[in-house]
């Protein structure tokens, strides 16, 4: 049962022509239906209130915030290093990308740079994470339209990526791999070998995935022309990532505003012009292929050297040195207890995550904690376009559209 008083505002938006109606009233031909936060297909705790005419959706109001943990506020009481584990919990389908984005943002604030090897490893793990995130996206999307087998196939591949995570970060899911100024541990030869083996197998597995879905008439028929988002609307709503590129906008931060060493890499930015659910699926599949291409180049080029910068006032020293040398012990004590003290000012840094543009905006007052941290999470912005896509479609399409937007509520609700 829905608490009518809490939902007054929601209903007003939903039934804009008739604001006196409550959710308990019978409408003539229409029905107000509550979808989520406990629903098998709303990707976590997204809640939609739908106004239906038969099976057709007249109006949609998404309600977010069921997974709100107050990360932006929590960050204000934490030092910059302390917040890294929380970035895992933003987009939990591709944890490493968030780690990388956060570390790069803090480094920009501090005005430091990690060694070249660390930067290369960051690119490797970011691209593996992109594959990982897109695997979940493709799998759950196929499951939403009824092809249940697909999700288990993609999760099987995801397990293999988690084995690589396990090797390099010591954790399969909550990786917390990056540090400010570098990485927690090295991406060693065994990990390189594991990644290469994974990529060789994965090429064929992707062919299998595409064989199962792309040639399936029902799959194509269900998605073609559904949930169309025009180029103009996509830009106006601030949609980013694969969803934007499916609407015909060639915007990829790796190309538009290269960070790390992406400018040295040879890859394409897949763009589709249709803007429907099928195009969003194709963009993701093609991006996985491009990520494989980038990874192959990276694994061949990875340079030797340090994995963490040697900047005693800003970067945590090695554990072994803390226990054996006085100065490192003092630096460690200062950084852990009082933070890295960036200069006064503000900075915004964003990367291309599997879901879209993940940005961190810091305001610093010179202390060890950020005065303000604002996370620009792609899922949150992408979800704004949901009512636009859903209205006028059928209830089955709503599920397909949510799947094609691929929101992760951990990130949308922060």
């Amino acid at each position: 049962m829905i608490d009518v008083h809490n939902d007054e505002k929601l209903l007003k938006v939903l039934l804009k022509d008739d604001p006196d109606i409550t959710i308990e009233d019978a409408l003539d031909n229409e029905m107000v239906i509550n979808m989520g936060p406990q629903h098998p297909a709303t990707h976590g705790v997204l809640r939609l209130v739908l106004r239906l005419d038969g099976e057709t959706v007249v109006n949609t109001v998404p309600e977010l915030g069921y997974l709100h943990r107050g990360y932006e506020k929590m960050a204000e009481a934490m030092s910059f290093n302390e917040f890294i584990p929380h970035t895992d919990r933003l987009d939990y389908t591709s944890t490493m990308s968030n780690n990388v984005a956060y570390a790069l943002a803090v480094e920009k604030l501090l005005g430091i740079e990690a060694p070249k090897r660390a930067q290369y490893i960051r690119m490797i793990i970011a691209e593996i994470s992109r594959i990982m995130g897109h695997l979940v996206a493709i799998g759950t999307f196929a499951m939403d339209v009824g092809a249940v087998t697909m999700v288990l196939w993609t999760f099987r591949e995801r397990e293999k990526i988690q084995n690589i995570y396990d090797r390099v970060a010591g954790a399969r899911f909550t990786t917390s791999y990056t540090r400010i100024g570098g990485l927690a541990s090295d991406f060693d030869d065994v990990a390189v070998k594991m990644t290469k083996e994974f990529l060789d197998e994965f090429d064929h597995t992707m062919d299998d995935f595409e064989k199962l879905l792309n040639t399936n008439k029902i799959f194509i028929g269900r998605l073609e022309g559904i949930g169309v988002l025009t180029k103009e609307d996509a830009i106006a709503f601030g949609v980013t990532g694969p969803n934007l590129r499916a609407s015909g906008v060639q915007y990829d931060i790796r190309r538009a505003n290269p960070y790390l060493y992406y400018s040295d890499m040879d890859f394409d930015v897949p763009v589709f012009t249709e803007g429907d659910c099928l195009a969003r699926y194709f963009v993701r599949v093609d991006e996985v292929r491009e990520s494989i291409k980038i990874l192959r180049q990276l694994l061949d080029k990875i340079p030797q050297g340090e994995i963490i910068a040697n900047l005693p006032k800003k970067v945590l020293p090695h554990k072994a040195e803390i226990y054996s040398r006085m100065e490192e012990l003092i630096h460690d004590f200062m950084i852990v207890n009082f933070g890295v003290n960036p200069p006064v000012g503000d900075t915004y840094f964003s990367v291309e995550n599997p879901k879209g543009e993940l940005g961190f905006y810091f305001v610093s007052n010179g202390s060890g904690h950020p005065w303000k941290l604002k996370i620009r999470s792609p899922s949150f912005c992408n979800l704004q376009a949901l009512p636009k896509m859903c209205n006028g479609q059928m209830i089955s399409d709503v599920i397909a559209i949510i799947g094609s937007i691929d929101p992760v509520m951990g990130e949308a609700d922060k």
Partner: protein
Amino acid sequence: MLELFTELTGNALLGMIINSLIPLVFVIPLALFFVWLERKVSAHMQDRLGPMITGSHGWLQTFADVLKLLQKEDIIPADADRKLFTIAPILVFAGSYAAFAAIPFSSAYIGSEIDMGIFYVVAVSGLVVAGILMAGWSSNNKYSLLGAMRSVAQIISYEIPTVLVILSIVVLAGTLNLLKISEMQTAYFWNWFIFGGPEPGLIKFLLIPFMFAGFLILYISSLAEVNRTPFDIPEAESELVAGYHTEYSGMKFAMFFLSEYANMFVVSAIVSAVFFGGYQSPFGYLGNSLGISWLVPIEQFFWFTAKGIFFVFVQMWLRWTLPRLRVDQLMAVCWKYLIPYSFVNLIIIAFLELYR
């Protein structure tokens, strides 16, 4: 068989009761086996093992599940219509169980040899629709109602191509009696209706492509009638949670579940009875060649079950491969393709039969 039971018990009523309970003894273990098979088929398609702990390869898992469901609290939602809510699962199970009465398991056993056999099966399956609508309505849940509405629209629409295809077989066989239709397709597999029926001649060969078309139409509509993927929109898990049985728990849920699997067997049995010789062996009987006459009905029973299980397996195979259709697409498939094709098919078959 009825006479035998009446003689044994010395009472007509008792004999009748025993006679009608035989399918139940067959159906319930079969439905449990299908639930297990579904899990195993899906697991192996998805690189998993499925149930492995309870019994060898988990074959006891469904028995354990049913035992669990029997012990569960029987929850009826406060706002539900209690009477309809209780009747619905019984009606659904009765509908799918009653269909077994006219299906010949072997030449020696048929629940009730009525001349309207196939007509009866189609009609009594309609009870399931009423049960589903009751369940959806009485649950007082919007998702259940949507699921029930979809289900009723779907089953009623897909009955038309089913009946049209069956009608074309009736034209060839000249009878509605399922036992006679099965008897007709005796001896070897080329006497099955899928290969043009038992009468030899040029017409038989001309019939074959239309028979295959008819079989495909019948099989597709039978998938829709039992709400299987790609037509599982009434219980589309990712859209409607569980459709019309969302609010059910415990044994009431189990009844829906078991009747769904029993129904799968019913439609498979009809497909095999009208097209694939029913209980007939594809190549003679061991009992005949050895001169042991009592072995023949047992062999027939084996073939009947084997064909049924094969078609159920194909249903599972499709379920774990295909996505599901949307409501409007589902109706389009039925009204725009299946019904016109089955009509044309019926007319051609009728003409060929006329000029035989």
